[in-house]
Every structure is written in structure tokens, then in C-alpha cells.
């Protein structure tokens, strides 16, 4: 339901609703999927890093910083899979040329432009930021499960499985954050 319970109650809904909701359409080549996942990890990484800077409470800042650090590691794992699949040690075209995306624009899950998400986050309560972060993680889990099914090769499957498990761990931390009295 659009806007969730707050819309139902007639209160003003929070969240970048105009961006709509979307899920990853998996009918793509594995290399394109890896490139897309890298771009989305990059977007999430930058989103969390910025949230870490904006939130002055040490515990809140630490949560976002740790999430950002993890997403940075995920990018390395994804490029590692790409390198091994293609045999290319370095590829200046990775990841954007594989997807023919506009340069200089960062995205987060659902195809939302990172700057739109960052603008929205200005002045939002922590709860709303955590809600949005949960949607990023859910989509990431969904993406990695689909990629694990689609790629061939034991190692790539194992890495995608590990990535989806790590995103599940993020989900647990964020949902715990929702229930915590900060």
C-alpha cells in the first residue's frame, strides 16, 4: 500500500514515494547483473556514508559507517567475480559501459537517483532513514538470490550467497535499530 500505515491514518506519508517501488528484473546477462549490483552497492555505500556524517549521535553514526564499509567490501567481491568470469585484470569500462548508463549519476536500489534519496533524507527522522535503508537491503537480498540462481560456476554462486547473507545481517541490524530507543 502506497505510503504505508501513515497514509492509511491520513497523516502525511514520509519517504520518496514519487520514486515508486520497483524490483530487479533478472532477465539480463550475468556480467550486466554484476555491473548493476556494483553500481547499487556504490550507491548504498555513498548513502550510508553520508548518513554517517549527518548523524551526530555516535551509535547512529557508527551503524551507518559500518554499513557503508561493508558495502565497499561488496564492491570488491563483485569486481572479483567479474574479473574471474571475463579474465580481464582491469577494465576501465566496468561497470557503466556494460549498462550504457549516464556517467556521473549514482543510483540506489529501485533505480532511485542517489541525490534524490540524499535530498529526501534531509531533515527526516532516524526511523524514516532506517525504513528507507531496510528497503535498500531487501532489494539487495532479492537481487543476490536471483543472481545466485542465474550464474553458473560454484565460486560465483558461493559469493552471491555470501553477499545475500551479509545483506540479511544488515537487515537484522537495521530492524533492530527500528526497535531501539536511540
Amino acid at each position, binding site marked *: 500500500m502506497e505510503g*504505508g500505515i501513515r497514509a492509511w491514518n491520513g497523516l502525511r506519508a514520509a519517504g520518496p514515494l514519487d520514486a515508486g517501488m520497483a524490483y530487479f*528484473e533478472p532477465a539480463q546477462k550475468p556480467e550486466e547483473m554484476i555491473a548493476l549490483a556494483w553500481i547499487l552497492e556504490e550507491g548504498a555505500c555513498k548513502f550510508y556514508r553520508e548518513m554517517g556524517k549527518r548523524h551526530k549521535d555516535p551509535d547512529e553514526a557508527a551503524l551507518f559507517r559500518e554499513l557503508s564499509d561493508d558495502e565497499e567490501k561488496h564492491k570488491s567481491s563483485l569486481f572479483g567475480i567479474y574479473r574471474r568470469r571475463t579474465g580481464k585484470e582491469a577494465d576501465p569500462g566496468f561497470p557503466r559501459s556494460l549498462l550504457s548508463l549516464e556517467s556521473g549519476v549514482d543510483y540506489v536500489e529501485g533505480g532511485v537517483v542517489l541525490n534524490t534519496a540524499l535530498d529526501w533524507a534531509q531533515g527526516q527522522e532516524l526511523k524514516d532513514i532506517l525504513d528507507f535503508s531496510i528497503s535498500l537491503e531487501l532489494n539487495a537480498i532479492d537481487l543476490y538470490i536471483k543472481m545466485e540462481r542465474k550464474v553458473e560456476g560454484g565460486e560465483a554462486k558461493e559469493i552471491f550467497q555470501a553477499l545475500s547473507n551479509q545483506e540479511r545481517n544488515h537487515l537484522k541490524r537495521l530492524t533492530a535499530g527500528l526497535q531501539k530507543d536511540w
Partner: protein
Amino acid sequence: MGIMDYFKPVDTWAPDKVRQFLNEVSPQDYNLVDVRTPKEYEQGHLPGAQLIPVGELESRLKELDRTKPTITY
């Protein structure tokens, strides 16, 4: 090709449409799922909504009848 070519939109309904649907359709014919925290659920939820916190959704999907429409909030 744009970024949105890699995503497929999820159908979202405005609250009024959900209200109309819930009024007209028997509860046996849909899944209504509250994915928030137990604390939020206790504070108020849609009548008949089943609580499945988002973190448990994946492991509890079998509790939902996939042949019926599912509304989440």
C-alpha cells in the same frame, strides 16, 4: 538503455483503493500483511492484518497463499 530498464515496477495502491478492496472482498480471498515491528503492530494495524516483520518475511513466505493477492504495508 536507462537504469529503469533493469527494474520492474511494483503495483502500489493508494489507501482509498485498499480501503475499497478490503470492504468489497472477503478476508479469505487475500493476504494482508503488516511488515512493521511487533511494537508498531500493537500500536495499531489494519483489521485482520497478519504480522510478519520484514526481517522474517523471507523465512515465513510459506504462511501466505500465493494464489491470492497480497497487500503489504
